[in-house]
């Protein structure tokens, strides 16, 4: 039978199929962090269960960590307590733990690929919806709740019904100034935040083939923002080159054996998808969001749609624009902004900082703008220094912070004040996401850079 990439990986991990119920799915690798794991460990304790395969779980601290002075004790007692709980839970169960200050510390979805934990054909879960990032390597990766974290710790399995399959093909090539983030925001604007709910997405076509692994991660990362369980891209030469010789990837004959399997991971010709969508990559512009969910995005040169032309509840749409302080029909270009945030599991990788540097080089940060540059990991922080990007940032009056999730979800002190506008390379513009009352505009690192030096929404193509 003709199989999709998704079928091949899913079906090979089914321990048991329950009639009129879910599949019992074996999980190869499990990532945990401080926020969604403590109650799962508590559950284990209450049920007197142990961790079945501790070597298959990896812990890093990221969601709730400060991004300055990481060498000092964490000031907030609740955050400190949560970080301590992760350390205690991980170490007492024999789980590798990359805590604050550890050289391998960083955002869970950034360090997974960096150290080769993420591999093609694997099933990967984490108590975080952006686990879909790892699909860039041809893995089935998705976010789970804390009850499921407990299941994976105790049994290395979860129970889920097999999702439907969608393929999104984008042919052609991207224009100058258009980045993987724009591709993702474009797709979400077409599908809405619920358009792929119930589906697992495969991205195919020339545009994705041309993207770097970092770019593919950005696109897969945002799969959840259109409701998809996850998104994946068939592994190719680029994938294998990226993962080769990383700490947790197979070596020697194990590598050869793995490669043999990985090379079978593609969608067979004539395999059937439940839904197929095709777009033209050359029609995509730099994107920006104007509302309070990631589906409310558009080309940076367009005007905010009128309520009458929008599907769904008009009152919800108007509530959203009111929150943002915008009106229907307005242009986004030239609108003043207060904050810029570069970082997160969406756009906190080295390529994103290179892109940001390419625009700000030789310019100065706008005096009205507060900018937070937060690398996704220590490895990226080091690369920024080694590649000379730090000098460019410093000359342009930008300061670099230490790794973590930071203002993406504003659990730590990196909160955008109420009413302020932030251009963010992160993944969610929900009300209050970046701090109570904060107004978020999602965009690429290039759009963020253009905003950071001009103090307003600016088409980055005018600065390239």
């Amino acid at each position: 039978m003709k199989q999709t990439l998704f079928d091949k990986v899913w079906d090979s991990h089914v321990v048991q199929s329950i009639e009129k119920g879910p599949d019992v799915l074996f999980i190869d690798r499990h990532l945990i962090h401080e926020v969604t794991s403590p109650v799962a460990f508590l559950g284990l304790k209450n049920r007197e269960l142990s961790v079945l395969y501790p070597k298959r779980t990896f812990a890093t601290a990221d969601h709730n960590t400060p991004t300055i002075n990481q060498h000092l004790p964490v000031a907030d007692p609740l955050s400190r307590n949560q970080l301590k709980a992760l350390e205690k839970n991980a170490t007492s169960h024999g789980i590798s733990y990359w805590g604050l200050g550890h050289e391998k510390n960083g955002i869970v979805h950034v360090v997974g690929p960096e150290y080769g934990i993420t591999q093609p054909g694997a099933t990967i879960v984490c108590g975080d919806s952006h686990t879909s990032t790892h699909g860039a390597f041809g893995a089935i990766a998705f976010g789970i709740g804390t009850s499921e974290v407990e299941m994976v710790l105790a049994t290395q399995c979860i129970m889920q019904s097999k999702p439907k399959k969608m393929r999104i093909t984008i042919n052609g090539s991207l224009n100058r100034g258009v980045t993987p983030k724009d591709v993702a925001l474009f797709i979400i604007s077409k599908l809405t935040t619920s358009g792929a709910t119930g589906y697992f997405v495969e991205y195919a076509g020339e545009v994705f083939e041309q993207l770097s692994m970092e770019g593919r991660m950005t696109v897969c990362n945002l799969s959840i923002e259109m409701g998809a369980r996850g998104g994946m891209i068939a592994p190719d030469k680029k994938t294998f080159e990226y993962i080769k010789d990383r700490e947790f990837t197979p070596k020697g004959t194990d590598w050869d054996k793995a490669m043999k399997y990985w090379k079978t991971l593609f969608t067979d010709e004539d395999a059937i998808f439940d839904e197929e969508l095709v777009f033209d990559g050359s029609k995509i512009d730099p994107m920006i969001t104007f509302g309070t969910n990631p589906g409310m995005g558009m080309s940076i040169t367009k005007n905010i749609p009128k309520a009458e032309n929008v599907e769904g509840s008009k009152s919800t749409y108007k509530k959203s624009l009111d929150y943002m302080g915008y009106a229907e029909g307005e242009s986004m270009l030239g609108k003043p902004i207060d904050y810029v945030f570069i970082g997160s599991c969406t756009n906190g990788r080295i390529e994103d900082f290179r892109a940001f540097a390419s625009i700000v080089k030789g310019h100065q940060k706008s005096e009205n703008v507060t900018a937070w540059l937060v690398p996704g990991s220590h490895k990226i922080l080091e690369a920024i220094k080694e590649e000379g990007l730090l000098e460019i940032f410093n000359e342009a009056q930008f300061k670099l912070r230490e790794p973590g999730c930071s203002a993406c979800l504003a659990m730590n002190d990196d909160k955008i004040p109420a009413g302020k506008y932030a251009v963010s390379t992160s993944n969610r513009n929900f009300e209050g996401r970046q701090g109570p009352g904060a107004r978020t505009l999602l965009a690429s690192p290039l759009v963020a850079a253009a905003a950071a030096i001009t103090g307003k929404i600016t088409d980055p193509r005018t600065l390239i």
Partner: protein
Amino acid sequence: MAYDSFKILKSTAVPLPIENVDTDQIIPARFLKATERKGFGDNLFRDWRYNQDDSPKENFILNNSTFSGEILIGGHNFGSGSSREHAAWAVYDYGFRCVISSFFADIFRNNCLNIGVLPVQVSARFLSELFEIIQKKPNTELEVNLPKQTITISTTGSSESFDINDYKKENMLNGYDDIDYLKNIKEDIQKFAQNTPL
């Protein structure tokens, strides 16, 4: 038993006719710092429910004593965004045992089922009917019947059936969860794991 069993729920309901309610609204990230599962109900819809000085926002539905009950009714695409199970915990801890919408986000739906909150997906037409009748008569009682898989408006008799797979239904009826099941097939899992390279 992992949580209270769910059979038939008769209750009034709280209507929240907003679409795309995301889990950041249900429980904002700054309230996720706990290491135990308690107290989340106090912060359910925190920023829609309270001003920044912690005074209640009078026009928010949870601050309107006219509406109460164990059923929450939300607009299309309820529970999108973050996978935080804390959102389902907050809904449960506040006192809701059932959430009704015309469409649920996947992870939120799963999280609800895993902790004993029943997500009931109804048609868009039935959802509008529910919103309308409850706005007019807030004391309208709904019956959510899990064995029969029906939801009925007691005053009008208007009714609709809803889907739930047999496995999850059995779990909800008995208060079992997936770990109860998985523990019993541990040997199969271990056998499977032997052929799965790390």
